[in-house]
């Protein structure tokens, strides 16, 4: 009664209205509104625009053809042999690179977690590849594996593994494997860094208790380290898969997708379609397929690892 009386006495200006609104459950939405607008502009609009492009003909060199084409690009993709090669290569490229990077990352993290003399220096050295931009790393490895001047070829010939220098990127049988190794070298410090942070967070008491109970290093690793790092592993793998699927730069530098599409992956194919053929519609459709595949992967992976239940 008293409150109603005060309301009728006070002038109903914008400040009063704002004050009244702050006491309602809508206030929280109002506070979130600027962030929501920002998210819509920065995330939702470009994503939706990508979907829109994929159902349009958008060829910069043939503006007369531009317009809605519905699912035309997606239908064309089904009979596009380069798309299927790229899809297969993307799966191989990502799976192999992740497997090698996780393994190397784990080994490096465990070694660095031992706090032995010199581990700080080794920590910096191990992280060095990750500091290099992909393009620089690509050119460096192109030179190291060069079939005329490459140091690695020279070493392999000297120790008798090869009889002559090998053109690693010129042979379809070795090109993808060679690029995967380069990518793994470049990316494993990412896992090493995250795994090391995770290892530091595992209480030492757990290992001591396990040792008292008779658990050896292998059982400790299986029953303590891996479960305790599960969330870190899941997050790191998802981030790295997204990065690998979306980044064609290393392959662009090392092979350009060749020889004869032997190292062609979806992101590189989309890039070449957009910026060499200027066919943004088809490139947009390829990007949407990548987007959907990544979403599916992330959803299935998170469910399988049960990380959200913890």
């Amino acid at each position, binding site marked *: 009664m008293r409150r109603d009386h005060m309301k009728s006495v006070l002038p109903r200006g914008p400040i009063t209205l704002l004050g009244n609104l702050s006491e309602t459950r809508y206030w929280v939405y109002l506070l979130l509104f600027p962030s929501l607008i920002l998210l819509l502009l920065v995330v939702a609009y470009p994503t939706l625009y990508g979907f829109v492009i994929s159902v349009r003909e958008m060829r*910069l*060199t*043939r*503006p007369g053809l531009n317009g809605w084409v519905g699912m035309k690009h997606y239908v064309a993709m089904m009979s596009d042999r*380069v798309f299927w090669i790229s899809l297969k290569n993307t799966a191989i490229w990502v799976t192999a690179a992740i497997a090698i990077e996780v393994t190397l990352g784990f080994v490096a993290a465990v070694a660095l977690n031992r706090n032995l003399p010199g581990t700080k220096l080794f920590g910096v050295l191990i992280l060095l590849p990750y500091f290099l931009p992909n393009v620089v790393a690509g050119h460096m490895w192109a030179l190291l594996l*060069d*079939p*005329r*001047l490459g140091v690695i070829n020279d070493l392999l010939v000297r120790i008798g593994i090869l009889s*002559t*220098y090998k*053109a690693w*990127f*010129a*042979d*379809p049988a070795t*090109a993808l494997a060679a690029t995967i190794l380069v990518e793994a070298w470049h990316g494993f410090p990412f896992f090493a860094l995250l795994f090391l942070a995770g290892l530091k967070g595992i209480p030492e008491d757990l290992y001591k208790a396990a040792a008292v109970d008779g658990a050896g290093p292998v059982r400790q690793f299986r029953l303590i380290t891996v479960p305790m790092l599960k969330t870190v592993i899941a997050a790191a793998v998802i981030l790295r898969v997204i990065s690998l699927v979306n980044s064609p730069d290393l392959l662009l530098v090392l*092979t*350009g*997708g*060749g*020889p*004869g*599409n*032997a190292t*062609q992956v979806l992101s590189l194919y989309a890039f*070449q*379609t*957009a*910026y*060499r*053929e*200027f*066919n*943004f519609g088809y490139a947009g459709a390829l990007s949407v397929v990548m987007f959907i595949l990544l979403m599916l992967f992330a959803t299935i992976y998170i469910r399988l690892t049960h990380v959200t239940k913890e």
Partner: protein
Amino acid sequence: MQITKREFLAATAALALAGSIRPANAATAINYWHHFTSQSEMAGLLKIIELFGKAHPGVTVTQESIPNSEYMAKVSSAVVAGGRPDTGMVIAERFADLTAMGALTDITKRVNAWKGRANLPENRWTGMSQDGAVYAVPAYAFVDWMYYRKDYFEEAGLAGPPKTLDEFVTACRKLTNPAKGRYAFGMRGGAGAFKYVIDMIESFGSPIVKNGQAAIDKAAAVEAVSFYSSLFLKEKVVPPSTPNDSYRQIMEGFRTGQTAMIWHHTGSLIEISAALKAGEQFATAPMPAGPKAHIARVAYAGNGIMKDDNVDAAWDWISFWGETDAAIALLEATGYFPASTAALEDRRIKSNPVYQAASKTLEFGRLPNSFVGAAGWSENVVNPAFQSVLTGQLTPVQAVDRMIEGLEAALR
């Protein structure tokens, strides 16, 4: 000192007004996008900017270097999203795509009224014009030719460079010695390989496009691809790394003595001259003739206006490139052949034996194929198809089928 709110507002307005008024003598600033990246190219460009600054003190030029492979990506992004430069470099192979996406301004009227036009014969404008309208001013030319190791030829008892493809194969057999790590020919099988595959197809008598339609003669093209790939597959006169070798690799191979011949254009003369002695270790020759046609490209490159904001200053800049002083400055720094006939008469070209092969090539050389979609087809279809032949994944017949199929799709 205290100022009132009114005084503050008045002062702010005055400052804003002063900032928006350009002084009468302020220089017009224009920017220029190009794909010169090497030290010699940049030296040539900076010299041209310096000469231009003296001739046109009212205009300042800001240059932006974009790697050649990224150039079209950047230009197309600027066309779609805004942010075009005032002026930009235009090469003949990209002209059709650039005009199709509306990246260039029609400069026909200005060209017709320009006195420098007299030094640029009609064939220079062909690759810079469409439907009678001119879109760029030719500045220099990339003339295709062959570099060969003169000392290796003498060592192998070869009298001179091959004039035909038959002679070329014979020379290749004599010059190859894998035991010494020496191969006759630095074949480009990686990025940019399409250029010579297309040349070879035309050398064997097949056109590429006629009246806007795909016109590849399958039999001739298969013969051409079979011949060219046999240098790697059968004759083994090219390095084993060929399927991935692009410009950098073929240059390294030639400069380090691994290969005895390479095909490229006049643009690499300075780089090769820095490593090998002209006239003693290496010499130049016109490209060998094919069984049906003698193909070598003369690709004129120039500059166009991409934005109309400072169109007068932009015109001053792009037309300056067509003048003799600018052409000679570029030639001296890079070896790039001038487009201007006045510059071609310069003694530095006339008296240099290295340039004789380029002068001969100008007599029969062809412009590169120019049609909308040429770049995409060449790089995304011809290159992987030819690489697949080299790596045994496709036969020449299958590769040519893919090239024809891809060409028809590109022209649709």
